[in-house]
């Protein structure tokens, strides 16, 4: 028997390569005769392209090819998830081409590509391209973009509207809100963020003229999906003629889910060059302007209820800035993944939301860690605080008063989880919100908050405490539901795994999910070790290559631990069943009499009549003497389509101190009690929470992508965009409650996004709490010293 490793703090099996400098990221790969590509990007946010003259660039040293938009014979990039779910939604779709042809819609849109012998020569030649632009007026703000007289981006999108979508019961919510005892209204902005994985994107395209096959190494979260989309929607190349490989991926946070122009360009270029591999690696500056951004909502919220604290209605109108053209699933984020969970962990009987997707002259916006759910959590958690302040109720108490009760699950919320077209529904599967709240309040010492504030005040500091009682949707998703909601997503969301136990007992697990730092090689190994009773060191987990792994939808939406793991467990179950049959044959017993204990398959009541799974694998893989009708080899594949999403929850509490003189905000304590169900590896869970919290805190306090009115990205480098540094954080205090998910056999829920979903609202509520003695009831993020100082000055009647 091996020690059970499921649920243990096991050191990661992938780490030795990373701590010794032996990781293998795209830019680490060299190929014989490899050429290098550089991309010319628009300096204008909005312009017509009159002409592109590449003659001088072609003559530059080392240049082997120059391409402009008209050279690329392929379709525009796909938009795979239109806003859907109710009748009459029109999506005015405009997606990028590999290279722009007639016009550019944001600074950074690709206009031309140069391939040269070295990267330096390709970059040098960019300056020799002459583009004649006709600059046009730009608009970067969603609210201004839908106003009368705004510059128009696309002929097929009047008033720059991508879609107008709504969810929930309008009449019921109007009645509830308009007739309520108390209504609180607030405009809130969820600012635009830049994802910033430490590895920028990059790819190597290689066309093999001998086989007419394309291979691309890509820093992607979704190699299987990319093959499908490139083949079926963009290039028209048969799917089996494209191979996508994601080697080690240096972080992603959603930004590497999507189909990007450079994928098409490196493959096209390699074909044009007769099979010379072509590498492109994004500079950080390019990444800021050309890889997706996240968030960017302007929301008008109305929360209504009674003076006793019962919340009876939530009415929300959101403008979602989607950029100059649409990214792969841009419209899906502010609709399905946002508005359908706006009521959070609260039982609010009437919820109605209108979302308008908007084109602006900015980089496209798509999923960034949490994708819609941080925005929803920010709205509802700010709303609960605003409502509590209005009626003079304690902020913990109002949450407690409105929580969905523990006996109410499965719970169908009123903001539309159950209203997808075709009748597909999902439910909040489980929850028990008060224990997590109580634990967090006790840890932070909530009862002594007034004393803490007084003590801080004596030091010239305004102390504030903020609560965020969040839920999140993980484990996306039942195929029937996601297919229905998307109305055109046209894809499923199941996962896959194959297990092969070789003659020697060594075991290869191949999966369709795709890690970007989460430690999947460790967690899948823990699961298979547990399921088959074999040592972790006998297992290797392979992923990331469409050749050799079963189709999978990739890793995002905190789905691998619940959906992917369950596929692996199913495959292990098939292995066990076949091994039992083989054991029965080897032990001359009935299959029904074979019992399994870890790796041992023995005859019931006779533990000495036993075969180990390794012995069984040896016998069936050789197949000298199989039972009648049994195929050789322990080799099983399983596909798993989850019946529901999973629903982590918890309470995060931030404590901040604000220097009244300077406006500097310091995060002094952070307490998080999360319920992510059972844990495969608690060490990895903690790490995911730490990282997610840091990103969410980053949004609240420092981060923000800023465009000027001409569409120039002012925060266009790491010098200008304030990423969190180590010295900005206190030690994060984590705790847990454990409510296993009933959806999957190990009761896991997923944890990749929880930290980022909860933490922004916790810090925002803390900052507003700190400023509340000055009469401030809301302030938009990020809470830089300048923003906070101005707010303080304004509140005191000074010069803001």
């Amino acid at each position, binding site marked *: 028997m091996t020690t059970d490793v499921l649920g243990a703090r096991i*050191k*990661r099996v*992938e*780490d*030795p*390569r*990373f*701590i*010794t*400098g*032996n*990781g293998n*990221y795209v*830019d*680490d790969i*060299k190929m014989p005769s490899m050429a290098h590509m550089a991309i010319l990007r628009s300096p204008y946010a909005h312009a017509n392209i009159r002409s592109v003259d590449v003659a001088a660039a072609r003559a530059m040293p080392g240049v082997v090819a120059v391409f402009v938009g008209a050279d690329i014979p392929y379709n525009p990039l796909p938009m795979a998830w239109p806003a859907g779910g109710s009748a009459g939604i029109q999506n005015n779709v405009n997606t990028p081409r590999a290279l722009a042809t007639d016009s550019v819609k944001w600074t950074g849109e690709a206009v031309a590509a140069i391939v040269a012998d070295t990267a*330096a020569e390709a970059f040098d030649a960019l300056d020799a391209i002459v583009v004649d632009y006709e600059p046009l007026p730009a608009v970067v703000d969603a609210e201004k973009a839908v106003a009368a007289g705004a510059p128009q981006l696309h002929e097929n999108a009047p008033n720059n509207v991508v879609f107008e979508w709504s969810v929930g019961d309008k009449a019921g919510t109007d009645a509830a809100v308009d007739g309520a005892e108390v209504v609180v209204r607030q405009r809130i902005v969820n600012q635009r963020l830049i994802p*910033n*994985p*430490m*590895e*920028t994107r990059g790819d190597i395209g290689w066309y093999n003229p001998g086989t007419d096959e394309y291979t691309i190494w890509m820093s992607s979260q979704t190699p299987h999906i990319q093959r499908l989309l490139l083949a079926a929607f963009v290039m028209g190349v048969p799917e089996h003629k494209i191979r996508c490989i994601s080697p*080690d*991926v*240096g*972080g992603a*946070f959603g930004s590497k889910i999507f189909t990007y122009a450079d994928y098409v360009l490196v493959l096209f270029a390699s074909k044009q060059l007769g099979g010379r591999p072509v590498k492109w690696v994004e*500079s*950080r*500056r390019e990444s800021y302007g050309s890889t997706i951004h996240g968030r960017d909502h302007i929301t008008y919220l109305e929360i209504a209820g009674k003076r006793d604290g019962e919340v009876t209605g939530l009415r929300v109108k959101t403008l979602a800035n989607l950029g100059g053209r649409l990214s792969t699933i841009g419209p899906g984020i502010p609709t399905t993944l946002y508005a359908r969970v706006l009521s959070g962990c609260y039982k609010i009987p009437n919820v109605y939301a209108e979302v308008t997707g908007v084109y602006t002259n900015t980089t496209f916006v798509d999923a960034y860690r949490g994708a819609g759910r941080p925005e929803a959590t920010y709205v509802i958690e700010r709303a609960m605080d605003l409502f509590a302040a209005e009626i003079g109720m304690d902020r913990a108490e109002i949450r407690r008063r409105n929580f969905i009760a523990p006996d109410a699950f499965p719970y169908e919320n009123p903001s539309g989880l159950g209203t997808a077209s075709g009748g597909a529904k999902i439910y909040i599967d489980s929850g028990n919100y008060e224990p997590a709240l109580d634990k967090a309040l006790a840890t932070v010492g909530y009862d002594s908050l007034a004393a803490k504030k007084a003590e801080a005040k004596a030091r010239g500091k305004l102390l504030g405490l903020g609560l965020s009682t969040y839920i999140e949707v993980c484990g996306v998703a039942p195929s029937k539901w996601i297919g229905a909601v998307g109305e055109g997503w046209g894809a499923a969301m199941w996962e896959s795994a194959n297990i092969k136990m070789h003659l020697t007992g060594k075991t290869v697990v191949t999966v369709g999910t795709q890690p*970007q*730092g*989460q*430690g999947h090689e460790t967690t899948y190994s823990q699961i298979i070790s547990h399921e088959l009773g074999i040592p972790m060191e006998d297992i290797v987990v392979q992923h990331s290559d469409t050749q050799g792994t079963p189709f999978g939808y990739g890793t995002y939406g905190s789905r691998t631990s619940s959906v992917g793991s369950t596929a692996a467990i199913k495959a292990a179950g098939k292995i066990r069943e076949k091994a039992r049959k083989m054991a029965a044959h080897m032990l001359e017993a009935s299959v029904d009499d074979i019992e399994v204990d870890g790796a041992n398959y023995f005859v019931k009541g006779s533990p000495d009549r036993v075969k180990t799974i390794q012995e069984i694998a040896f016998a069936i893989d050789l197949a000298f003497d199989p039972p009648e009708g049994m195929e050789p080899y322990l080799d099983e594949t399983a596909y798993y389509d989850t019946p529901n999403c999973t629903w982590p929850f918890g309470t995060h509490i931030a404590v901040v101190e604000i220097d009244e003189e300077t406006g500097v905000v310091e995060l002094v304590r952070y307490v998080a009690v999360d319920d992510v169900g059972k844990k495969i590896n608690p*060490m*990895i869970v*903690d*790490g995911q929470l*730490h*990282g*997610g*919290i*840091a*990103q969410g805190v980053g949004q609240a306090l420092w981060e923000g992508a800023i465009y000027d009115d001409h569409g120039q990205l002012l925060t266009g*480098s*790491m*010098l200008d965009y304030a*990423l*969190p*540094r*180590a*010295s900005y*954080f206190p*030690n*994060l205090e984590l705790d847990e409650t454990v409510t296993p998910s009933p959806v999957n056999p190990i009761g896991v829920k997923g944890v990749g996004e929880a*930290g980022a979903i909860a933490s922004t609202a916790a810090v925002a509520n803390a900052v507003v709490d700190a400023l509340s003695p000055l009469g401030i009831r809301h302030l938009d993020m990020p809470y830089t010293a300048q923003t906070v100082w101005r707010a303080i000055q304004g509140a005191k009647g000074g010069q803001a």
Partner: protein
Amino acid sequence: MSEHIAFVVNGAPRELEVEPRRLLVQALREDLDLTGTHVGCDTSQCGACTVHVDGRPIKSCTMLAVQADGSEIRTIEGLATGDVLHPMQNAFWEKHGLQCGFCTPGMIMTAVDLLDRNPDPTDDEIRHAIEGNFCRCTGYQNIVAAIRLAAETMRSGAAVSA
């Protein structure tokens, strides 16, 4: 137009012909195939490219290869002694101080330098010492714990094997 340079990299003498504009990180990664040193930005902010030059941590994207002529360079690949990991490498592994691994080599090189100068740093000193290295995955907490563990290990002089 190229310059001849000679330096010692991870204990081995190396000579290169480089363009004057070639960055040290490019020479290491592309000419010497030492791809453990990474490039994460273009403004000397992220620290993923940190190596030691003559015993001091340097962002190798901010130094020309010709400036490293005659110097002694240590990269992440030169940190372990044979199969025996440096205590800092081991501590990052032990404490889950990395997720995607991209910032890790630079972070480890910066942390090794910190302990060279200050064998018993406080958490606050650790957090300030690694301010020039971005990590987007870990929230830094387990990196701080790893550096603390490495400090304890190195002070106790215990040999840690891989």
